[in-house]
């Protein structure tokens, strides 16, 4: 599992960890029931606060991405297809939001956007 922490990005560290682990789970890098490093060893390896890594794990558990077995540690939860679909849609929404923002900024009309989408779909099929 790859985890990179950017101290200067302004994004809270627990959030960075949460997102990266979530992505790894959703795209299959971390398979179902794969063990995760303990909260403490993760914190110490990344040289961050234990409270931070605990928070990231708590959020993951809250949203159903991982589960914790007492005295055994944390594991990737069995894949929830709903969640995967939601995640994929979320990613698309992000990109769409950016497209819309640019369109408004440059004065591109809805019709022109549709044209561009059709072109892209044609080219890639």
């Amino acid at each position, binding site marked *: 599992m790859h985890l990179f922490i950017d101290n200067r990005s302004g994004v809270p560290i*627990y959030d960075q960890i949460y997102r990266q682990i979530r992505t790894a789970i959703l795209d299959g890098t971390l398979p179902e029931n794969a063990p995760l490093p303990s909260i403490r060893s993760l914190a*110490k390896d990344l040289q961050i*606060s*234990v*409270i931070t890594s605990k928070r990231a794990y708590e959020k993951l558990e809250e949203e159903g991405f991982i589960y914790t077995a007492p005295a055994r540690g944390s594991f990737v939860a069995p894949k929830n297809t709903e969640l995967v679909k939601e995640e994929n849609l979320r990613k698309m929404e992000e990109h769409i939001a950016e497209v819309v923002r640019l369109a408004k900024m440059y004065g591109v009309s809805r019709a022109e956007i549709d044209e561009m989408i059709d072109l892209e779909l044609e080219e890639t099929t």
Partner: protein
Amino acid sequence: MNAIKINHLSKQYDGFRLDNVSLTLPNGMIMGLIGENGAGKSTLIRLLMGLTKPDSGTIQLLGQDNRENFHITKQDIGIVFDETGISPELNVRQVNSIMKDVYEKWDEKQFWEYVRKFDLPEKKRFKTFSRGMKMKLGIAMALSHHAKLLIMDEPTNGLDPLVRDEVIRLLCDFTRDESCSVLISSHIVSDLEKICDYIAFLHKGQLLISEEKDRLYEEYGILQCTAEEYAALPPESIIGKNDTHYGLEVMVKRSAVSGEHNFSSIDLEKMFVFMARGEKT
């Protein structure tokens, strides 16, 4: 159990007063004690280790009051002062021989491992050591008797970034065991920013804050605004401001300001400076 529990500690000196300090360090955590020179960090540590007696208040280390049988509790406490305390004439071998008799749980093997890791010469006199080497020896001594609590007073002063990084790594390794805790005082905030779980700000003998580090980042933010915007802010939300002549930088409590605001990033150093300076520019 808490590694450190300080209750209403006060100590008066000529011209300086450590005033009603209460803080708690839970087991397995790292606390950074930040303060300017003369804020009272060293005084607090001296009080913790029993080198000085407080005027009022109580101190508990590893669950034991530090006035009772403290020399037994000290077996489990590792201490690093910024002057290592070793006589200049001694060498590392002799230090090992002395520490063997001081600490019941002195682990010679572990000590030599650290000595090798730090590349410290075994037979050379301590006075030939550089500042970094002296500090490393102090740390090796503190980490080689299976201590449960490590207290470090300005250990990274005058050390280059490589050595400082090594010290940080060592602290992380030390606290992998969840029964081991660290209190480290420094005025070099960047060292503490990454690894600390708890942060305490000490300024002119007053404890400004003692909090989980993450919560500090959530609770406080920096706003860049104009004078009018500043005037519009609720006064109870303002911690401090800085007039740059091109605008105002204001540190606020996020929860107390309403509406959408664009907070810029804040780090501990800025936080400390704002809190210490208060409303003054």
